[in-house]
């Protein structure tokens, strides 16, 4: 029996090494399945929790055009969540179960959404930095070995690119409008820069369970490499806008042709991912409340469906 499994696993590893994708009905090692469940549901949760910091400004967006664009963006994120929960379901876990994990704090989601949005400029900053960082992570992950997730990511990345553009346009407009607008952008940049760098996760040396995931192509690049790619891209954009990166140790390394930053505050990072960031409680409470207060609605929809299924059966 175990010999059999060892053989299947060997074949499975070979398929992945040869660049094949794994589909829901294919055999897969239990650990592959559980890692993917965790990964995809975490991503889905991030989309759903990610609706809250931006949703916070929909009712205050300062022009009709911005209001429409922001609402459409947050709706996209809901769509991403929806799509990803469906992807995860192909692995044999229900949406209800995933919500349960989120609401009890068992499941993680992107640390960045545990920071508050305090100014309108944050809507630009999130598009530019947060969607920007997500794009780097996700375009890499789109080459992962699990078919449904890979396809979901391709589709999602297209929209994330649009979000990033939209965010950059908000920033550019604010900066162009004068000192007041530019100051709002700089203040927001100061708050979001470091938390965005944390989005890429711990240093590779401190990142558990990577080797297996690398072999199975459900992790394709190291956290540090992706973070560096983001830093190089973003520092240059910040300079082009005349913004100051809030890092006194930032310097350009002529040899590596790349920007070196000071050290990330890992104490803060650990606090946030273990549930003690500025908005962790707030975000989860909002989700729990929405879910709990919606229980009677879901029940009514189920009761209605059951009634009408029954009546259409008796009519036959």
């Amino acid at each position, binding site marked *: 029996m175990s010999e059999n499994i060892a053989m299947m696993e060997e074949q499975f590893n070979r398929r992945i090494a040869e660049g094949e994708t794994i589909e829901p009905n294919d055999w897969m090692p239990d650990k592959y399945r559980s890692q993917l469940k965790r990964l995809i549901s975490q991503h889905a949760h991030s989309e*759903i929790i990610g*609706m*809250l910091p931006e*949703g916070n400004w*929909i*009712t*205050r*967006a*300062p*022009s*009709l*055009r*911005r*209001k*429409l664009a922001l*609402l*459409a963006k*947050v*709706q996209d994120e*809901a*769509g991403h*969540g*929806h799509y990803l*929960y469906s992807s995860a379901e192909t692995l044999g876990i229900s*949406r209800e179960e995933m919500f349960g994990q989120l609401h009890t704090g068992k499941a993680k989601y992107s640390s960045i959404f545990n920071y508050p949005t305090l100014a*309108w400029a944050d809507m630009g900053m999130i598009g530019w930095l947060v969607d920007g960082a997500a794009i780097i992570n996700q375009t890499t992950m789109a080459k992962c070995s699990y078919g449904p997730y890979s396809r979901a990511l391709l589709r999602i990345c297209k929209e994330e690119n649009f979000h990033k553009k939209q965010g950059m346009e908000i920033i550019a*407009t*604010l900066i*162009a*409008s*004068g000192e*007041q*607008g530019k100051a*709002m952008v700089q203040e927001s940049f100061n708050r979001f820069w470091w938390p965005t760098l944390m989005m890429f996760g711990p240093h590779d040396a401190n990142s558990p369970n990577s080797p297996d995931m690398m072999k199975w192509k459900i992790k394709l690049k190291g956290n540090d490499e992706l973070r560096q790619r983001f830093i190089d891209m973003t520092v240059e954009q910040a300079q082009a806008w005349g913004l100051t990166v809030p890092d006194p140790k930032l310097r350009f390394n002529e040899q590596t042709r790349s920007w070196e930053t000071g050290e990330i505050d890992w104490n803060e990072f650990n606090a946030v991912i273990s549930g003690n960031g500025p908005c962790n409680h707030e975000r989860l409470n*909002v989700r729990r*409340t*929405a*879910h709990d*207060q*919606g*229980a*009677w*609605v*879901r*029940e*009514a*929809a189920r*009761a*209605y469906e059951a*009634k009408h299924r029954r009546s259409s059966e008796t009519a036959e």
Partner: protein
Amino acid sequence: MTPLSEYLLSLADDRLILGHRLSEWCGHAPILEEDIALSNIALDCIGQATFLYEIAAEAEGNVRTPDRMVYFREAIEYRNLLLVEQPNGDFARTIVRQFLYDAFGISLYDRLQTSSYAPLAAVAQKAHKELRYHFRHSSQWMLRLGDGTDESIQRTQHALNELWQYTDEMFIGGFPAEEVIGSGAAIDPRTLRTGWRNSVDTILSRTALTLPEKDIRMQSGGRNGRHTEHLGHLLTEMQSVARSYPEITW
């Protein structure tokens, strides 16, 4: 302001305020599918409002921009129906509010497609298509909630009882001005009442819901800027950023 531009403004205000209310659900809906659907409908409403403000501004002679109309008018200058400014409450109340408006909006915008004022007819064509979807969505939820569980029936009945007082306002005469109706630009709201009542009855007859008592006192005043207290708070929030930084272009 001309009688025509004031009419256009009232149509725009209805769509904006209802869309704004729906957008408050974003991230808080009872099902993920409804986060998506309610945002979609909110987007339609605010999108239609944007077009309507544009043609209202044009009809005024472009003395102010649509954003100026939205962000720098006081509650007493808003012309929307009282119904659309009512708070979301629970999901039942939001659905009832939406259903009562959609049943009216769908025939209003159907008729406006042949408005003699061409810019309005053009907006109405797009709006009518979207409203058909909105009406289907709110009707379906009226059925589910009104024929679901005891709790959903009771909540929905309560919402219907509470909101019924704001329905008469959709159909009373005196606004828009006779000349705007006479020119064929506007629809006389009095002519929409029977069709609306039929649509409402048809859906309710398939549920356990009943219409409230006949002697409920009907409220009105939105078309003259006599609103409920809720609108002021909605606007305070909506206008806060735009008014805090009048120098910034967004």
